[in-house]
C-alpha cells in the first residue's frame, strides 16, 4: 500500500476533467455470471460483408465456438456463442449507410453448451509469429476497448516496427470497472498474454498503464514484475478522458502521434487489457472470443457490477435477470456516463465492442435546462484534451463555414464530450461536431470523386488523341492538335464576331455619309 505512495511521477496530459470518485469500495468488484438465455442474437456488421461469407445455413446445428462466417482481410470470423440450432438469418441494411450491411443470426440454445474441440498450445515459443497471428485471427480477436480493429492485423503491421507495448488498463470512462475487474481476477493470464505479444512483435519494453486510484492492484503488479526487466508500470492521473490511444501516447511521451499515422508508426503498440486477455485465451487455450466482461452501471445508487457475458446475449434478457422488470421505465445507454449513446432496440445484443451498459430511470423532465447562447467563456477551450478550440468549431459548424471548420482541425476531435459537459450555456456542442464531420466526409468524397473523374477524362482524351494520331499519321497537312485544344471553335467564333462588328461599322459609316450628304444638299 505504501509502496505506491512513494511513486513520484504520475503521467498526465493537458486538458481533461477530474471526476468525483466512486464511493463504493473498489475491492468489491468481482465477476458475476449470468445463465444463458434461450435465444442469442449475433450481429455481424462489417462494411463489405458479402453474403457468401456466411458459413452456416438456417436449421443447422452449431457447436459452441464454431465459426459462423469466413473472415477476410478486413474482418475476422465470428463464432457461435453456444451450441444449438440456427433459427433465422436476417439481412437488413443499416440506416446509416447503404454499404453497411447488418446480419442478424439467431441461435436457439440447447443448454448443453457443447464445445468444439479446442487445440491447446502449451509452449507458444515453438511456433513462428506468423502462425500465432493466424491463430489469433482465427479466434476472432478484435480490439475490445471499443475500437473494433482486428488485432491480428495490428500485430502483423507491428512486427519489427515497434519497440514498446503499451497495455492499456486505463478506463476510458470513470465509472466503468470492467478492466479493473478483469485485472483483479486474471492478472497472471494477462501477463502471459503480454509475453505472447512481446514474442510476436519483438518489443523491448512493456508498459502497463493504470490509473492512480487502483492502489491495491498497482502494488500487486509491482510485486509480480519485480524480477521481470521487460515490464514497467506507468501510473496515470485519474482524469477523463485518458483511455484513448492518442492521449495515452501523449501522456507517456509528451509527443503527439503525427496526423494520419498510427501509434505503430512511432513505435508504440497499444492493446487494451481485455484484448491481451483474449489473445492469451486464443493462443494458449485455443478458445475463440465469445465472451467478455461488461460493466453494469446503475445511475440510481451508484451500483456497479461486472458480468462475464457471452457475446450475443440480448440486453433484454440481461435486464430481466437483474430483476429490472419494467423495461419501459428505464433508459438504457451503451457506453459510459460521458459517451452515453441511447439504445432504442432492447433486442440488441452485447457485441464485442460494448463494455458498459448504463441504466437510468426515465424521468419526465420537469425543468428543461435553459440554453443560452455561447458566452465566449473559454471553459471548453481549457478542457479539450486534443488542443482544439471547440467554441470556434461550434461557430463554424453552426453557420456552415466548412472550409474554416476544416482548417480548425475539426476532424481531430475525438468526441469525448467534455467540452459539452462543462459548457455553462448547455450547448450541445458535439452534436454540431458530428454533423459537421459527416458533411466534411461528404465533401472529401466529392472531391475525390471529382479528381477520379477528371483523371478518367484526361486518360480518355489521351487515348483519343493517340487513336487520332494513328489514323492521321500519313496526312501531314491535317493539324490534329488544333482539334484537341478546343481552340478551333473559339477562333472561328471570334472571327465571326469581328466580322460582324466590321459590317456593322460599315453600315453606320454609310448612314452617316448619306445623312451628311443630304444635309449638304439641303444647304
Amino acid at each position, binding site marked *: 500500500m505504501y509502496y505506491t505512495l512513494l511513486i513520484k511521477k504520475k503521467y498526465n496530459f493537458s486538458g481533461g*476533467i*477530474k*471526476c*468525483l470518485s466512486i464511493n463504493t469500495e473498489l475491492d468489491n468488484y468481482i465477476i458475476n455470471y449470468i445463465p444463458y438465455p434461450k435465444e442469442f442474437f449475433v450481429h455481424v456488421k462489417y462494411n463489405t460483408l458479402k453474403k457468401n461469407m456466411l458459413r452456416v445455413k438456417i436449421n443447422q446445428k452449431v457447436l459452441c465456438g464454431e465459426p459462423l462466417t469466413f473472415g477476410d482481410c478486413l474482418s475476422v470470423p465470428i463464432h457461435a456463442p453456444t451450441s444449438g440450432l440456427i433459427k433465422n438469418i436476417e439481412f437488413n441494411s443499416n440506416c446509416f449507410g447503404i454499404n453497411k450491411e447488418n446480419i442478424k443470426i439467431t441461435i436457439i440454445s440447447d443448454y448443453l453448451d457443447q464445445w468444439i474441440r479446442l487445440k491447446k498450445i502449451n509452449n507458444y515459443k515453438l511456433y513462428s509469429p506468423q502462425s500465432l497471428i493466424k491463430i489469433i485471427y482465427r479466434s476472432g480477436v478484435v480490439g475490445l476497448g471499443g475500437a473494433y480493429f482486428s488485432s491480428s492485423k495490428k500485430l502483423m503491421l507491428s512486427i519489427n516496427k515497434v519497440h514498446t507495448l503499451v497495455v492499456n488498463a486505463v478506463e476510458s470512462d*470513470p*465509472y466503468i470497472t470492467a478492466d479493473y475487474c478483469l485485472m483483479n481476477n486474471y492478472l497472471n493470464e494477462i501477463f502471459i498474454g503480454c509475453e505472447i505479444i512481446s514474442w510476436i512483435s519483438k518489443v523491448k519494453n512493456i508498459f502497463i498503464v493504470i490509473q492512480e486510484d487502483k492502489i491495491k492492484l498497482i502494488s500487486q503488479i509491482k510485486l509480480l514484475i519485480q524480477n521481470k526487466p521487460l515490464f514497467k508500470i506507468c501510473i496515470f492521473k485519474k482524469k477523463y478522458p485518458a483511455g484513448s490511444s*492518442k492521449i495515452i501516447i*501523449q501522456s507517456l511521451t509528451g509527443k*503527439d*502521434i*503525427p*496526423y494520419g*499515422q498510427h501509434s505503430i508508426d512511432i513505435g508504440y503498440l497499444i492493446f487494451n487489457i481485455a484484448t491481451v486477455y483474449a489473445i492469451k485465451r486464443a493462443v494458449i487455450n485455443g478458445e475463440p472470443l465469445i465472451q467478455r466482461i461488461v460493466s453494469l452501471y446503475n445511475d440510481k445508487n451508484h451500483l456497479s457490477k461486472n458480468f462475464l457475458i457471452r457475446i450475443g446475449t440480448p440486453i433484454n434478457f440481461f435486464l430481466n435477470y437483474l430483476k429490472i422488470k419494467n423495461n419501459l421505465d428505464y433508459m438504457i445507454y451503451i457506453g459510459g*456516463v460521458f459517451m452515453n449513446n441511447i439504445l432504442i432496440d432492447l433486442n440488441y445484443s452485447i457485441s464485442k465492442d460494448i463494455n458498459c451498459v448504463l441504466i437510468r430511470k426515465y424521468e419526465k423532465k420537469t425543468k428543461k*435546462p*435553459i440554453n*443560452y*447562447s*455561447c*458566452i*465566449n*467563456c*473559454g471553459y*471548453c*477551450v*481549457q478542457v479539450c484534451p*486534443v*488542443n*482544439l*478550440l471547440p*467554441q*470556434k468549431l461550434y461557430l463554424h459548424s453552426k453557420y456552415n463555414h466548412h472550409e474554416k471548420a476544416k*482548417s*480548425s*482541425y475539426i476532424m*481531430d476531435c*475525438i468526441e469525448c464530450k467534455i467540452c459539452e*459537459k*462543462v459548457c*455553462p*450555456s*448547455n450547448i450541445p456542442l458535439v452534436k454540431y461536431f458530428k454533423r459537421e464531420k459527416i458533411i466534411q466526409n461528404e465533401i472529401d468524397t466529392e472531391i475525390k470523386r471529382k479528381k477520379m473523374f477528371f483523371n478518367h477524362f484526361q486518360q480518355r482524351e489521351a487515348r483519343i488523341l493517340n487513336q487520332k494520331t494513328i489514323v492521321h499519321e500519313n496526312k501531314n497537312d491535317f493539324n490534329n492538335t488544333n482539334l484537341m485544344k478546343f481552340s478551333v471553335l473559339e477562333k472561328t467564333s471570334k472571327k465571326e464576331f469581328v466580322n460582324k462588328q466590321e459590317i456593322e461599322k460599315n453600315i453606320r459609316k454609310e448612314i452617316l455619309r448619306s445623312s451628311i450628304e443630304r444635309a449638304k444638299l439641303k444647304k
Partner: protein
Amino acid sequence: MNLPYIYNHYSVKNIMFFVLIASIPAILTECYFFGVVVLIQILLFIIFSLLFEIIILKIRGKNIKNNILDNSSIVTAVLLGLSVPATLTWWMIMFSSFFAIVVAKHLYGGLGQNIFNPAMVGYAVLLISFPLYMSACYKENTKLFSLDDVTISINKIFFQTSKSDVFIDNDPDIFTKATPLNDFKNKSRASYNTSLENISLKNKKIIIFSSWNYINISFLLGGFFLLYKKIICWRIPFSFLFSLFIFSTINYFFSTNLIVCPLFHFFSGGTMICAFFISTDPVTTSYSNIGKIIFGLIIGFLVYIIRNYSDYPDGIAFSVLFGNMIVPLIDDFLKTSGYGHKKI
C-alpha cells in the same frame, strides 16, 4: 445534461451569481468610506437595468423570464455602480444604464453577442457626457449609516441639493477629487513636490490614499474568491497586472519625479476591479488561452499610457473598450494546432 460527477460545473446563472457574491466585500468597503449613498446608487442601477432589460426583451420578443434569470444585467449594474463615483443624480444613472443595457448589450444581439463590455460603455458615456460629475469629490463620511447620512444621500441622488460640496475644488476641508490619481494628475506636472509639503493636505492625502487602497484590496479578495472557484481564469488578471507593472516600473526609473511609483498604480483607481471583474467578463474577451494573455497585456499597456500621458486620470474604461475592439481580431487569427499537426 447536468452531471453530478464533475467538479466545477456551472451554468451561466451560477457564474453571474458568484461574481455578485465576490463583489460584496468591495460594496461593503465603499459603503464604509463613502456612506449609504453607494448602496442606494447600486440599487438604483439594478432597478433601472432590469427595467430596461424587460422593456427591450419585450420589444425583441424574447422569453423574459429565462433571460432575466441569467443575472447578467444585475452584474453589469453592480459593476457600474461600483465604478462610478457616488455623486450622480438619478437621471444620470438612468442614462448610463440605458446605454449599458440597451445600446451596448441588446442592440448587438443580447448576452453573448455584444462586442463591448456593457458596464464600461455605460461608464464611458458618463465620462464623456458629464466629466465634471465623474471627477467630483465627496466628503469623508463621518456619520456612517445614521439617519443623517441617509437623508443626505437621498437628497444628493434625487434632488441634487448638496451641490455646494460637489464643485468646490480648492477648499482644504474637502477631498478634492474622486481618486488620488486625479489629484496626482492635477498637481504633479507643476508642483507635486511642493504640494506634498503642505502638511494638512498631506494628511488628507494619506487618508484618501488608504481608502482607495482598502477598496482595491477588497476587490482583490473578491477576485481571489473567483479564482479559487475557477470562475475566471488567472490569465487575464495576471497578464494585465504584469504589463502594467512592467511598463510603469521602466518609466518610474527614468523619471522618478514625474511618474508615480508602480505600486501606487496597483492600489489606486480601478486597477483591481478592472483586473478581476471587468476585464474578465467572458463575453467580451478572447476565449483562447493565448488570446486571453494578449488581451491582458494590451489593456495593461493602454492603462499605463492613458494614466501617464493623457488628460483622463483613470484609463480603465477606454482601455477595456479598446481591448474589446481588438478581441475579434485576436480570435480570428489565433489558431491552435490540433492533435498531431505541426506546432504553430
